[in-house]
């Protein structure tokens, strides 16, 4: 059975003046896959991701996300994706429940569904005691997990995670990845950028971006073979040093 | 010290890199002073009036001619009946209506007495009163010319000398005020926002754990704004001298020193605001909502303080802008030296010290 492509990208480019932040990248992502999008800071990961989620217009190239074109149907894409930015983006001055209700509401979930989702989500995260606390008062790890859950609230086909585990402790990171696996298992495609190379090992496939271009794309195992490296960190170093 | 200079440099970079804010900081005060210097005046000119002339004789015609010749009035329309008055007032087309009684000149000749009503729209009491006074003055002059051949009795004639502003230009009144309000709000707003911004972004903590002392952090943040405000003050003074022909009778050097003192006091107020507000939003609302109207209304910028009720006169004393306006007017228009304004200077100095002391205390409490 041929696997369904949920993201198709061909020669996608973003220029700021003379500088090509993203330089003609091409790749596909399949349904249910955990796709790692790696690169050093400034390699163009976030810019590329912003084009895919429809908040930045590409300069040229083609891209389809969840079956919709990024140039013409950005708003349709938005119904089918979830996004968690590297900057914590829930409202600090709303409570856990209020944040869930708000985002559920603007994704058009019914009142009953929001209630159901909130209860399930709070229980899953073990936030029963903190449901009526302001989000600003939660520890960072909890905030991150909550953000991820909120990004999934409308059961999107694809969820985009921009460096989701920045600044959290190893235990929380482990828990976070368990949540990612669970989502992928339920059929959600996960598109994740990171610069933690150990996390790259958890992905089904990874691409490595250097200076706006994708220099390598394969499963971690095959990449290690190709570059004759013991781990992804070495793969990355070999690529980055040219 | 080297570290401190490095920090100040960083602050300058921050400001100069943000072209848009820089443009706003310098462009807006210039635009404002030009606009206001030319446009705002509390003189009453060109008031639109209407005439209701039931006599239409030589005398009324002559009076109407005299009224329309004066620069104070422009006759907008003639109406025929008294019942029209209400309607045109409600539309706000004219501010006053002159109503000549019937048989105006006949009564004047026969009874030596005739009347004219000055009906004013007194929703604006100042304009209404001034209109009544001006019309009265024009008529008195006319009346005098009618009675020219009569022998005059004892006459004492006041000869008024308008000092400091012989041409009664309202620019002299408003430029010092506009300068004050710009320096005050820009300085206080800039500092309060830039400090709370660091707090909100979490970068303040980083600065505070650095080897820099808290006082150095604050001074470093404020220093570039002192510099910017001084440039603003210089530009405003240059504009007022060359464009509005404001005299500087007193010493420019003293004016410069006093301006720096005022800028520092406004910045200190800004620091104080930043210590009591957690977010930029709060800091801005305090400096805008809390400062704008009191500075405009209670500083003597537009409205004379001596006409206010006594409690408000007392409150006006805590407005730094009031003292600075007295100082600038003194130096620029009256040409006084420090011996005449030492009291105001001392008050400003005291306020500055007070603001700084209070902020330092607040910061210590916060850090403890």
């Amino acid at each position: 059975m041929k696997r369904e492509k949920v993201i198709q990208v061909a020669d996608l480019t973003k220029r700021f003046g003379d500088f090509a932040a993203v330089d003609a990248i091409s790749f596909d992502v399949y349904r249910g896959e955990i796709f790692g999008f790696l690169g050093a800071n400034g390699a163009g990961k976030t810019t590329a991701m912003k084009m895919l989620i429809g908040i930045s217009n590409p300069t040229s190239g083609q891209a389809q996300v969840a079956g919709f074109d990024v140039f013409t149907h950005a708003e349709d894409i938005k119904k089918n994706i979830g996004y968690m930015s590297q900057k914590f983006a829930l409202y600090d001055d709303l409570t856990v429940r209020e944040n869930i209700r708000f985002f559920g509401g603007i994704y058009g979930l019914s009142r009953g569904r929001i209630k159901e989702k909130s209860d399930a989500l709070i229980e899953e995260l073990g936030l029963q005691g903190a449901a009526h606390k302001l989000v600003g008062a939660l520890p960072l790890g909890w905030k991150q997990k909550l953000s991820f859950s909120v990004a999934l609230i409308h059961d999107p086909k694809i969820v985009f995670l921009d460096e989701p585990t920045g600044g959290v402790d190893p235990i929380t990171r482990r828990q976070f990845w368990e949540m990612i696996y669970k989502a992928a298992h339920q059929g959600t495609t996960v598109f994740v950028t990171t610069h933690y190379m150990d996390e790259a090992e958890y992905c089904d496939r990874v691409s490595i971006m250097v200076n706006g271009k994708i220099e390598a794309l394969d499963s971690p195992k095959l990449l290690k073979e190709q570059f004759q490296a013991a781990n992804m960190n070495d793969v990355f170093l070999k690529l980055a040093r040219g | 010290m080297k570290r401190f200079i490095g920090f100040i440099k960083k602050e300058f970079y921050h400001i100069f890199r943000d072209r848009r804010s820089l443009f706003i900081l310098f462009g807006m005060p210039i635009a404002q002073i030009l606009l206001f210097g030319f446009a705002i005046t509390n003189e009453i000119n060109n008031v639109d009036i209407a005439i209701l002339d039931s006599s239409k004789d030589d005398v009324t015609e002559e009076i109407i001619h005299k009224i329309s010749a004066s620069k104070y009035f422009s006759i907008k329309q003639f109406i025929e009946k008294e019942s029209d008055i209400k309607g045109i007032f409600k539309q706000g087309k004219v501010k006053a209506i002159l109503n000549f009684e019937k048989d105006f000149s006949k009564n004047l000749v026969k009874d030596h007495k005739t009347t004219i009503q000055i009906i004013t729209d007194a929703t604006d009491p100042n304009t209404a009163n001034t209109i009544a006074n001006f019309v009265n003055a024009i008529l008195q002059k006319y009346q005098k010319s009618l009675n020219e051949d009569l022998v005059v009795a004892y006459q004492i004639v006041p000869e008024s000398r308008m000092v400091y502003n012989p041409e009664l230009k309202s620019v002299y009144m408003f430029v010092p005020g506009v300068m004050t309000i710009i320096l005050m709000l820009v300085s206080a707003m800039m500092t309060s926002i830039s400090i709370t911004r660091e707090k909100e972004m979490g970068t303040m903590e980083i600065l505070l754990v650095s080897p820099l002392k808290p006082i150095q952090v604050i001074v470093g943040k404020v220093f570039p704004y002192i510099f910017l405000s001084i440039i603003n003050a210089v530009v405003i003074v240059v504009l007022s001298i060359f464009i509005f022909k404001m005299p500087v009778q007193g010493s420019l050097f003293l004016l410069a020193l006093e301006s720096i003192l005022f800028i520092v006091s406004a910045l200190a107020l800004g620091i104080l605001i930043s210590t009591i507000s957690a977010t930029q939003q709060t800091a801005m609302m305090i400096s805008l909502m809390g400062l704008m109207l009191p500075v405009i209304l209670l500083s003597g910028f537009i409205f004379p303080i001596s006409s206010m009720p006594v409690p408000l006169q007392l409150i006006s004393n805590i407005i730094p802008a009031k003292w600075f306006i007295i100082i600038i007017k003194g130096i620029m228009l009256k040409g006084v030296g420090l011996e005449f304004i030492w009291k105001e200077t001392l008050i400003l100095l005291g306020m500055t010290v007070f603001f700084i002391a209070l902020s330092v205390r607040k910061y210590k409490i916060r850090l403890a």
Partner: protein
Amino acid sequence: MKTILYIIQKEFKQIFRNKGMLPIIFVLPLLQLIILSNAATFEVQHIKFGYIDGDHSATSRALVEKFDASSYFEVWTDFPSEVQASAAMLRGEVDVVLNIPPYFERDLQKDKHQSLGVTINAIDGAAAGVENVYVTQIIQGFNQGLRVDLQQITDQQVQAMAIETIPLFWYNETLNYKTFMVPGILVLLVTMITLFLSGMNIVREKEIGTLEQINVTPIKKRQFIIGKLFPFWVIGMGLLTIGLIIAKLIFDVPILGSLPLMYLYTSIYILVVLGIGLFISNFTDTQQQAMFIAWFFTVIFILMSGLFTPIESMPKWAQVLTEFNPIKYFVEVMRMVMLKGSGFMDILPQLSKTLLYALIMNGLAVWSYRKTS
């Protein structure tokens, strides 16, 4: 529609949860209305008056007494010489100095005509003009008295022709300045609060990073904007209501016109202000920039609104500029409807201009709001 409700709910929660802001939004403006309305008066009173009496005669004393008796002047000091008098004026202790020369009485009786030097501090030109009128009036009154005292009334004087002027002050017989100022200051406060809050609102989310999260949702531009602005619209209307109650209860300002008409106008007017605020928010990256721009326009709008100084006295080009000033229309309408009882047809020009303004500003605001960059 449901989506909009979620946004409105969220905005209200955030506004009411910010305990630092609540007093600034609700208490500060009303406090200012109550206090500052008393400050705004052009009435010239309590004029600081000094004199130099070089004559020390019955006439000079009588003249000074006339000033003392007037409610406009507060007789401050009797200066021994001009030097002291001008020093006092430099210090700002007196604003008007009357200089009675030596042999004043003797010369008056001899020549029947005498000049008196009056020095007036004219930095505030308008006040100086009024002070001059008062001085002249008092001296004229004094002249009249002199005729009675020193001279028999002649037949000729009875013959003099007199034009009697009767000033009638409509709508405000006592020339109460507060009646004029309270509606105007209320207008300012409503404008400032709604403009500053809306101007900061979206740029704040931009700065914190939550706006990006909103932009990846399928929400529509107009849903988002309506949801954002509605709470501020409600706050503006609320402030108007409380302000009107204060105007009535504390200042006893008459409300002659129709309340629904005032609310109709205000509801459109606030849309203009919110549109401007949003437009500013869209074009700035930081709250600091947004505030400077909002501040710049507010100061211009306030000072060129005819609220404090008359628009007719401005040069022609400046009068043309005021046509673009929304505060001008609001001030006019409030004063017309409240104080004169103007009706719908009377304010139609202002109403239609404001409506047009609202459409343009909100159109621009929605157009300039970009979900993508």
